[in-house]
């Protein structure tokens, strides 16, 4: 359960993208209750994101909330889209690199004339690449 990372992209009104990352060799899909709790933690952290946004002028907001053993890190894009990661104490550096790479991907996606801003992200290409980035930065044993 704690080897699962949850990554959500939140737009103005609704989540635009969700992905769970599991450590290789760890447990398979986490139980339903755990997943629901994870989502709850992430969404309740949204208010704290707003607060933290005013404290710094950068886009990477680091850890905005800590519940039990789980941290919520955030990256706030220039278009007010929030990239949220629920984790259990990864290094700041790897999380920052993860966010930066995903942000670049997101920018490229938004340049696609067929993608409208603030709509759910359905591109399978985007999904594959996000998972590859997660594997590279977050799932190193």
């Amino acid at each position, binding site marked *: 359960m704690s080897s699962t990372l949850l990554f959500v992209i939140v737009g103005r009104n609704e989540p635009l993208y969700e992905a769970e990352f599991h450590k290789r060799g760890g447990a398979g899909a986490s139980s339903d209750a755990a997943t629901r709790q994870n989502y709850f933690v992430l969404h309740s952290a949204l208010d704290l994101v707003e607060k933290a946004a005013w404290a710094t002028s950068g886009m990477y907001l680091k850890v905005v909330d800590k519940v039990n053993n789980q941290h919520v890190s955030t990256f706030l894009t220039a278009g007010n889209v929030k990239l949220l990661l629920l984790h259990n104490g990864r290094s700041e550096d790897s999380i920052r690199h993860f966010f930066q790479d995903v942000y670049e991907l997101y920018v*490229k*996606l938004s*340049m*696609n*004339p*067929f993608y409208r801003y603030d709509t759910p992200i*359905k*591109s399978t*290409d985007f999904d594959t690449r996000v998972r590859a980035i997660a594997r590279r930065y977050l799932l190193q044993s």
Partner: protein
Amino acid sequence: MATKASSTMASASSVGNVLWHKQSKVNAELFALTYGAMVGELMRDLEKTDKIQEELDRMGHSIGIRCIEEFLAKSAAEHQGVSVGAALKSQMFTDTSELLKASLKMFLGVTAESTIKSDTSYTITLVDNPLTIFVELPEDRSELEYSQLLCGMVRGMLEMLQYDVTCKMTQSQLKGSEVNEMLIDLKQVLQEGAGEDYHDE
């Protein structure tokens, strides 16, 4: 005369290179985004994929008939009087592939390859397409030929040279192929002179 013509042919691609360097340029991202915005608008206005493609083809056609004049004029200036177009008038249809490659280089900066299939058809292959740098086709539009404008442009250019052709994309990187390929087929050679509208009754 034949040797002079063939040496003109051989340097058609170098003509393209020289002309490209002399042209003033526009930012590639701006160009791609503008084209994307236009396709997006067409999608909102017309909704049906085949209507959108028809419209793109029509737009390309009107661009092509203007581009060919500019290309021939500039290449004549470059070639000190022996224009690539003039040399082509007496040649075969398949020689227009050289002219197309040079003009694609001049206007879009893309280097194209051509493969002659028969006396009346050939294919032009592009490895990069400057129109599609950020594009990913959504699933419900997988039929859309995004670069149809290029096909229309080719059709317009060849029409001004009195060749009535059909041009369509046979391979597209947006649809999963390695390269982009256009197939150009000659339907008929148009007679010189004004069109039907201008004939006396």
